């Protein structure tokens, strides 16, 4: 039986750059691999990868594989599943890490099925057990109401997707040595049965939620789209982004791109202001790692107060404009 060794990171590019998640996974993988004295490989998919290979070695990669075949120039579940599975079979890693991103969510289960690997999605933490030579994964379950710690099986590849911002990148170590390997493997495009006919990006309003230092978010308690005007004004004063829970999105008061929570975005700003948000587990899981949480809600027993640092029991229609006005004076 093969002995699986080392860690393979699937590196994503985003807007023509190495995605933050790729740097995070490299940092996390480096720390795990060092504790076993093993190597970290990185797979960059698409020809554009060649531009970034050198950048990834100071961030922890020992070997950088670049799949340059033109079929990989754009993301497609079939071609990416193929190349990731191929590389895993070639280098036999003990662990393959992807981000809990559009790519990872879609491809990780398929890769694990092909490799007969173990699988954990949306991990917040991955640890190593040196004695038993297995990995411990911590991941939210039941919509974030509970956490589960899962142990992988020794002698079987483990595939994990990791939630963005849960691993920490290394500060670049200049002069670190590594190797770049070009892969020519390709796939006949006619084997890709699902044809992508259109890609449509939603227009982004203001600051990206994932990168915002301050977020003001509204929930079902706002009662309608008008409520978001007050939220936007407060966010504008604080130079923050506007978010929402699932109810305003389902009710179409705000676009889907604004949803925070298990089915939307996972955010971790310095300051999170929750307005008219009751605090359902599926939302909380998306904002819990915020440094400081402020809640305004008319129900004194709302669950949101349990996870907040500062609370105000009030009708948001009255309170929010007053808070906004006061902040205007204080921040002048």
């Amino acid at each position, binding site marked *: 039986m093969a002995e699986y060794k080392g860690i393979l990171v699937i590196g994503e590019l985003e807007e023509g750059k190495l995605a933050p998640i790729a740097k995070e996974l490299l940092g996390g993988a480096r720390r795990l691999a060092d504790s076993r004295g093993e190597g970290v490989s990185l797979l960059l998919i698409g020809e554009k990868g060649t531009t970034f290979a050198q950048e990834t070695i100071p961030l922890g990669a020992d070997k950088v594989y670049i799949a340059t075949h033109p079929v990989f120039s754009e993301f497609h579940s079939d071609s990416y599943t193929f190349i990731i599975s191929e590389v895993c079979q070639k280098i036999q890693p003990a662990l393959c890490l992807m981000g809990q991103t*559009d790519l990872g969510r*879609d491809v990780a*289960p*398929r890769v694990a*099925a092909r490799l007969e690997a*173990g*699988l*954990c*999605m949306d991990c917040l933490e991955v640890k190593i057990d040196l004695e038993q030579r297995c990995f411990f*994964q911590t991941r939210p*379950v*039941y*919509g974030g*109401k*509970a*956490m*589960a*710690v*899962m*142990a*992988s*099986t020794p002698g*079987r590849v483990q595939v994990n997707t990791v939630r963005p911002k849960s691993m920490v990148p290394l500060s670049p170590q200049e002069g670190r040595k590594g190797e770049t390997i070009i892969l020519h493997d390709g796939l006949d495009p006619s084997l890709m049965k*699902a*044809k*992508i*006919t*259109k*890609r*449509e990006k939603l227009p*982004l309003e203001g600051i990206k939620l994932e990168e915002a230092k*301050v977020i003001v978010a509204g929930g079902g308690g706002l009662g309608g789209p008008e409520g978001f005007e007050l939220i936007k004004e407060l966010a504008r004063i*604080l130079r923050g982004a506007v978010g929402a829970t699932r109810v305003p999105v*389902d009710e179409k008061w705000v676009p889907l*791109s604004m949803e925070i929570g298990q*089915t939307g975005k996972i955010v971790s700003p*310095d*300051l999170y202001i929750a307005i008219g948000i009751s605090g359902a*587990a599926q939302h*909380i899981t998306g904002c819990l790692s915020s440094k*400081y*949480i*402020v809640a*305004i809600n008319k129900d004194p027993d709302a669950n949101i107060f*349990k*996870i*907040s*640092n*500062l*609370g*105000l*029991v*009030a009708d948001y229609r009255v*309170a929010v404009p*007053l*808070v906004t006005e*006061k*902040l205007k004076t*204080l*921040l002048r």
Partner: protein
Amino acid sequence: MEIIVCIKPVLDPDLPPAKFMIDTPKNRVVPPAGIPFVISPYDALAVEAALRIKEEKKEGRITVITLGDGSADSIVRKALAMGAEEGVIISDPAFEESDGFGTAQILAQAIKKIGRYDLILCGRQAADWDMGMVGSVIAEYLGIPIVTRAKEIKILGGKVKVERVITNGYETFEVELPVLITVSNELGQARIPSGWGIIKAAKKEIPIWSVTHLGSDPLKIGKNAVRNHLLKLFVPAYERRCDMITGETMAEAASRLAERIVETKLI
């Protein structure tokens, strides 16, 4: 048009956190007494998607399948009451404690036994383990194309047009049938069964298939085939000490809140 929908019974995800209990020594969630299991919400949307396709095409047969024990019958009947034609329950002690791969293996075998299918629909993830894997793995085992996280599905002749949700937008796919599609919450709301639907569903005969019906490989299913073992299940300590702001008037309280926000030096 033959549509198969895979559904899973789960503890109602809308259960308030206070009623959510874990038996720590056994690493299990304890369902509160008297609260029935429901169709996992994304799976209910998969049933809804199937019904919308059938209504638009004015023909089609929907078969729902579930792997489960006690609560399987009630959720299959719920899907029948919503408008599905047939139901199948897969149940056998040998299937118990299967992981996602074992579950996908069993469901893929059941789908093969049903034989005829143009479209297989699953929810994007189950509301208990939140893995989002079973649909994709079934497609891999059956060797058919897969599109995940659909918000809209339209049949155009022998093809299907699927709009798929991605982080900041949508992708549109065209795929030849048969195909497996997982359904996301953006599809909308699942319908509530009509009274007549409930009456009809109550009388329906639902076959129960076991290992012998499916000829499952014992090495690929059940407890012994589990690839990741649950070590610990716990309710995380989320709680912060919340400082409640008060004041003689709302203006005073709001003013205090603004001052406290500024004092955090986070803005």
